[in-house]
């Protein structure tokens, strides 16, 4: 009897057979493999398995405890959903990449040492990059390149940290890291938060996810950031910096999301925002907060997958991904609309939906830890989420002005995939017990208290009110432009508002606060930020770095190698050639250049020693 079987093996070795199968056999095969992996994970018991000695160090493939199991459950469940959703795809490369991606992320979850972790970490980056590349459009390929370069940067930081950590401690075992502020500590932290998409290291996510294939983005939304959350929970609980980074993330993501008209980019910004909650939870580091992070990761994978599936279905059926060009398609895609709305209510933590039972945990943890500001900011972000994901996006996509697009429901497999996810979102929301049972720490938390429910409903309702009052202003535009007049026009508006309503704001005139904060100010401010900072600076920096390298290299190559050296040497050579009258030799002038270069190098070396 095998004591433990690594679930990654199903996926990684399973992937090798995919090229040889097709049609129905392939579909059955994909489902069988994922279900087998799910069963494998469900039957697992805690312990340490598959420990090997590898070049003098202990490596552990199976570090199974409550924390890794919680993630493994949701990863395999999501794999089933994602595979069902992607059954109609004929490009086998995508199935292979998805399998490798899921398998390697499970490998990270169960890795007991840094070495195994790193290996799976890198495979993840490459496999997921393929899901972007696979769209085979120029924009997608460029985004994929940026995505990979970003992850390789993160991977390199991680590897550097691991090596330093190993040299410092002599151990490769992966666990809680001592917060000694050493270089190793920071390098590993940077490696992890690149994958968690913490600003300003988040641009890969919002850049690449909207460009991925329809089914690929569903997978990507689930695994990369959540594996990062897992490793943070394991290694960095209670790191103060993460509290603030996470809080900033939640707001940052929401602000930018409000401005997007590509709805997958909008959803991608919400990943940043939602992962922010989890990162905050890790930073708080209390049992309640860590439970909150893990449970939020659990529910987030399901509802975010569902959101991407819903959005993907609309793209698949209409071929359009711009919010400003859709509208009125609820008539022809009612089921998709309903399923999408379930996810929308979940992400905005509506009572009885899954987000509520997990998100409130992190907020509660923040208030228990006497961090009122953090808690307040998190609640603010939550209402922003409700505004853009649950109100704005579906309003303009499914309802709103009729765009005249007439289509139909997506293929059955897509609907089934979405249905399972939707079912789980509601089930967890109503019966949080089973979810709480798998969390790493014992749970003494009751989400459905009168306080929680009324509090969050109040906020959400006011947000809704604000939305419908300002619906005109929120209408998405194909391009959001900003002029220099922004400063004085908006500046004077703000000034006028402050002058007119200072007391009103102070007294908690909530409608007006939300009105201003979440629709007006946020909108304009984030408009500005997104335009200037996100799209230009960060994307620009990544593009720019690559471009600078290319420019420098072609410069070095052309100017330096060809012009200057050749020119210089040619001149000297010409001089000697004329002088010596050995014109025949000029045919291989290049060799002379090379020889000259060698001589020069040798001269420098010798003079270094003689005159130092």
């Amino acid at each position, binding site marked *: 009897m095998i004591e433990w079987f690594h679930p990654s093996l199903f996926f990684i070795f399973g992937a090798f057979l995919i090229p040889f199968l097709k049609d129905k056999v392939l579909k059955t095969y994909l489902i069988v493999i994922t279900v087998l992996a799910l069963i494998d994970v469900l039957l697992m018991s805690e312990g340490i398995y598959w420990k090997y000695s590898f070049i003098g160090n202990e490596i552990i493939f199976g570090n199974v405890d409550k924390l890794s199991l919680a993630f493994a459950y949701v990863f395999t469940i999501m794999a089933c959903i994602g595979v069902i959703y992607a059954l109609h795809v004929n490009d086998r*490369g995508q199935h292979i990449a998805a399998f490798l991606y899921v398998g390697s992320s499970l490998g990270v979850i169960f890795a007991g040492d840094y070495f195994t972790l790193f290996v799976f970490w890198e*495979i993840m980056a490459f496999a997921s990059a393929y899901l972007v590349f696979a769209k085979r459009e120029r924009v997608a390929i460029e985004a994929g390149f940026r995505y990979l370069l970003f992850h*390789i*940067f993160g991977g390199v930081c991680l590897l*550097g940290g691991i090596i330093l950590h190993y040299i410092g401690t002599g151990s490769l075992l992966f666990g809680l890291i001592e917060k000694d502020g050493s270089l190793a500590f920071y390098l590993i932290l940077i490696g992890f938060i690149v994958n968690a998409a913490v600003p300003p290291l988040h641009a890969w996510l919002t850049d690449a996810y909207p460009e991925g294939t329809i089914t690929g983005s569903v997978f990507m939304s689930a695994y990369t950031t959540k594996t990062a959350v897992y490793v943070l929970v394991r290694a960095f609980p209670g790191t103060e910096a993460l509290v603030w980074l996470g809080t900033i993330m939640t707001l940052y993501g929401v602000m930018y999301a409000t401005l997007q008209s590509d709805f997958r980019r909008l959803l991608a910004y919400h990943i940043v925002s939602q992962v922010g909650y989890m990162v905050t939870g890790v930073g708080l580091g209390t049992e309640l907060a860590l439970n909150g992070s893990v449970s939020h990761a659990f529910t987030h994978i399901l509802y975010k997958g569902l959101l991407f599936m819903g959005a993907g279905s609309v793209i698949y059926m209409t071929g359009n991904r711009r919010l400003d060009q859709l509208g009125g398609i609820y008539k022809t895609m009612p089921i998709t609309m309903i399923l999408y709305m379930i996810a929308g209510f979940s992400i905005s933590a509506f009572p009885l939906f899954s987000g509520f039972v997990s998100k409130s945990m992190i907020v509660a943890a923040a208030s228990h830890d006497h961090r009122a500001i953090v808690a307040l900011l998190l609640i603010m972000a939550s209402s922003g989420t409700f505004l853009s994901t649950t109100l704005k996006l579906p309003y303009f996509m499914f309802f709103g002005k009729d765009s005249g697009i007439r289509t139909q429901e997506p293929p059955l497999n897509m609907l089934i995939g979405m249905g399972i996810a939707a079912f789980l979102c509601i089930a967890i929301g109503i019966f949080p017990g089973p979810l709480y049972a798998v969390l790493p720490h014992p749970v003494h938390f009751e989400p459905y208290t009168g306080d929680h429910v009324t509090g969050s409903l109040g906020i959400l309702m006011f947000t809704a009110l604000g939305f419908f009052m300002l619906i005109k202003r929120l209408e998405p535009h194909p391009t959001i432009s900003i002029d220099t007049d922004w400063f004085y026009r908006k500046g004077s508006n703000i000034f006028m508002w402050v002058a007119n309503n200072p007391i009103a704001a102070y007294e908690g005139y909530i409608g007006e606060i939300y009105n201003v904060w979440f629709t007006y100010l946020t909108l304009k401010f984030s408009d500005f930020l997104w335009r200037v900072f996100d799209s230009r600076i960060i994307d620009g920096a990544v593009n720019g770095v690559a471009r600078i*390298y290319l420019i420098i*290299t072609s410069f070095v190559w052309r100017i330096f190698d060809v012009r200057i050296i050749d020119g210089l040497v040619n001149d000297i050579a010409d001089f000697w050639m004329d002088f010596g009258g050995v014109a025949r030799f000029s045919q291989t002038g290049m060799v002379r250049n090379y020889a000259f270069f060698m001589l020069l190098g*040798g001269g420098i*070396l010798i003079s270094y020693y003689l005159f130092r």
Partner: protein
Amino acid sequence: MEILIPTINLESIYPEILITVFAILVLLLQVFTSLPGRKQLGYISLTGIVLASIIVLTQGGAFGENTALPIYSFSNLWVVDNFSRFFKLIILIGTGLTVLISIKYLKDEGIDHGEYYSLILFTTIGMMIMAGGSDLITIFLGIELMSISLYVLTGYTRKRLLSNESSLKYFLLGSFATCFLLYGISLLYGATGTTNLKGISGFISDANFGSPVLIIGMVLLLIGFGFKVASVPFHMWTPDVYEGAPAPITAFMSASPKAAAFAAFLRVFIEALPSLQGVWVDIIWVLAAMTMTAGNVIALVQDNVKRMLAYSSIAHAGYILVAFISTDKSGIASILYYMLAYTFMNIGAFAIVIIIGGKGEEKVHVKDYTGLGYRYPLTAAAMTLFLLSLTGIPPTAGFMGKLYLFSAAIKSGYVGLVTIAVLNSVISLYYYLKIIVAMYLKEPELDVAHDSLVFSPAMVIALIIAVCGVLLVGIFPSPYIAMAQQSYISF
């Protein structure tokens, strides 16, 4: 006057004798073989290589139980130790793979003469002598035997102008570099009174080691070896020669002779000049940084895959130099391990360049690789594996190799240099990935219609060996690392 009769220990040069016999045999047999039978000569050479490898493996017992080693013979001109055995194995693997990928190529280009295999085998002997020489003169002889054979091989496709040009360039510059080397040797001899490596190290440790003559001799040797391993600024021949040479020879040159050059380089600097370590470490630090950076950065803008791989091989020499300066046991073991991994992945990549290149090597540009992933999924998958391994992505041999190299250097405290090396690996990803993306993600351009590729059995075998090598060395590195660790130079 007493005549010194050297101790002749033929057993210690059995592998070299065997390869010599086969080299001459191939040359003679070609007179009696008809044109279609020429490829048999390749298989005969392979037999010699396999036999020699077996002898190398068994000479003096298995790796690990090296109580019988090192064996010095021929008046201390020659040594058999684990270090030389490991390098000889790498060289023989490289040569064997080269012969396999050459057979079809020679037929296509109409140059399948016995001389080709014979020259390759002579090169191999030269390289093995470089690995096993324990005297500057022996090492020099090995270098010359290797280089002269290579000059001819580089120009072997006589009718291609590019090939002729590269041969001449290589010859001229190679001779120039040899002068440096020989001058260095003579200065060392002048300073120490001996050419024996142990003798030199013994002399330096008891006497004045700071003498300028000695230092200049060392620098000149550094230049000579720097040329052979293609380190910046002595690298400029590499791209031109690699581009012009017949593709199998390019593959060969980028693997085996580089390994042999590193063998001699390491042995001379670590066995003969350890007391000057403080002096040469700085220079090698700078050379390593320049070599990696120049190699990778210039590779970025290349469009010709052969030339790109040439620059990439320069960059890899830079990575190896990173571990060179750590000079301790793990540093040397990591170089050995990396050379083994590099041989498989680089020859593998070149094998695919040969397949795609077709007759006359016309399709060597990145655009010729577009859409390959759809028409030839296995070939493209193999190429992807080799390129990822060259980048250093787990779970390939290249990753383990790089990890080992860099951690050796970090242990010795060269964090700055390793940072440069790691950044370089990131840059290299870009150009390796360019090929992968072309293969899988771009629709073939209209004017690039792939003729159907032809796979000869020998080529397929070579590819299978290379793929297995990359995966085995990468996924189960322990036995190879153990072997490499046993192969530390014994003083």
